């Protein structure tokens, strides 16, 4: 396996296995079952699915935040997750401090991260707000900063969970350019979204999920989007 490769074999994940009380069991009932997936370096994979389909759980398994209850998850290279408009930030710290902290967590030296700060600051377009605590940022500002940080850290695997819903059109455009740059550098990108237009504009492979299972894995983006739209209609009728 090369850097940027992802291999999931017969992966299962059960929230109930982690619980000891019924109250907790009922909170997150969804489960992943028998997930087999191979993603090669340089692919941009879009994952579509309804709420509770298991998309975000799958991403956290790949990121190494969750451990599978069965099967195995193998990833090669540095993996970064950008989820839910920068919730991986320390809210009391400033944007600048969060840049440094993220860099250190990724294994960079303080000196190296310091050299990246000006560039990240400019790319995120935050200006002087970079020295304000994250808790004062809007969701769009957090998304821009989160994306800028990870894009500058050049991860081998970049996992994106629903961040483009908050950014404006210009943010999407520069994000797309940066993602394409990363992919040309052989990075692997996975984008979880409800928005089929994001998949159409960014991805070269689509995965559809329903009730914790992969129901479609295709290079034909239109086919994936159509299946997702059909299942949305069917769900609405139910």
């Amino acid at each position: 396996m090369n850097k940027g490769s992802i291999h999931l074999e017969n992966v299962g994940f059960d929230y109930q296995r982690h619980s000891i009380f019924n109250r907790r069991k009922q909170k997150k009932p969804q489960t992943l079952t028998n997930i087999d997936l191979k993603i090669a370096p340089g692919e941009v994979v879009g994952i579509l699915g309804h709420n509770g389909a298991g998309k975000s759980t799958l991403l956290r398994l790949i990121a190494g935040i969750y451990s599978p209850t069965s099967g195995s998850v193998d990833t090669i290279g540095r993996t970064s997750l950008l989820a839910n408009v920068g919730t991986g930030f320390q809210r009391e710290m400033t944007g600048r401090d969060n840049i440094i902290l993220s860099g250190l967590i990724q294994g960079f030296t303080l000196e190296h991260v310091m050299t990246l700060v000006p560039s990240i600051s400019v790319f995120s377009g935050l200006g002087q707000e970079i020295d304000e605590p994250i808790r004062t940022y809007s969701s769009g500002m957090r998304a821009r900063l989160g994306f800028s940080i990870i894009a500058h850290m050049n991860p081998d695997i970049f996992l994106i969970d629903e961040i483009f819903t908050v950014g404006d059109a210009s943010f999407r455009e520069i994000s797309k350019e940066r993602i394409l740059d990363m992919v040309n550098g052989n990075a692997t990108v996975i984008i979880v979204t409800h928005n089929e237009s994001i998949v159409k504009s960014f991805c070269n492979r689509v995965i559809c999920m329903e009730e914790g299972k992969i129901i479609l894995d295709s290079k034909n983006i239109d086919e994936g989007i159509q299946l997702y739209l059909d299942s949305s209609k069917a769900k609405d009728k139910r």
Partner: protein
Amino acid sequence: MLGAVKENLRNLISYFDVIKYMVKRDLKITYGRYILSYGWTLLEPLLFTLVFYLVFVVLRGNPDENLPINIMIGILFFSCFSKIISQGTNQLMKNSMFIQNTALPREILMFKVTGFQVIRLILSLIIVPVAMMLLSLKFSISIIMIFLAIAGIALLAHGISMMTSIVNVYIPDTFMLIDVALRALFFLSGVFYSASHMPDDYLKYHMLNPVAVYIEIGRAAVFNDFTYLSSMIIGRTLLITLAIYFIGTWFFMKYNRRAVVLI
């Protein structure tokens, strides 16, 4: 169990820069907004000592002039112990979003809390030599034992908080229970009294409490008086501390990946 402790220490070394940075930021966030900044770490215990001196020595006419320092050492050590436990217990829940979105080993957040409180304690203890000079107390080599007391009480609290942080995810009432337990322990650990005030019949039970022993070591280091601290008592306390640290670390490493799903 040894495997868990090894992994824990490996992560401590690998992510030492992250911990260092987080502790520095926390210190800046905590003290940076005040005009006196880090001066508060000294001023707070100094003001307490003056109040204790006024109340216990001047107003109550207690002939023991060392009492205010005794009480101050008790308060500083116990405060470090209780804050590591109370903040550590809530650490996973408080940082739930950060944890759910960052592949950072969770114990790093626990180390951050302990590191922050230890540095705060050390900064506050700078007042001790000042107070010793004011009271014309002689410095002796025994003062280095204060570092044993700091390391011991921090390791003990760290071990306990590693366990309680996980239990708190499953049983949210843990945080309240810990709060009550810490308040009870405050009165049972000789913060406002020392071993010399204990009746002989109860002294041996008092010295079974590792928190009380570490506070006594801190006092003994300052006053160079180890009357109530035999090597057996110190050794036993260190063994209890190591056992709690090992069990706490093993428990945390075993269950944190399961617990993190629920936060």
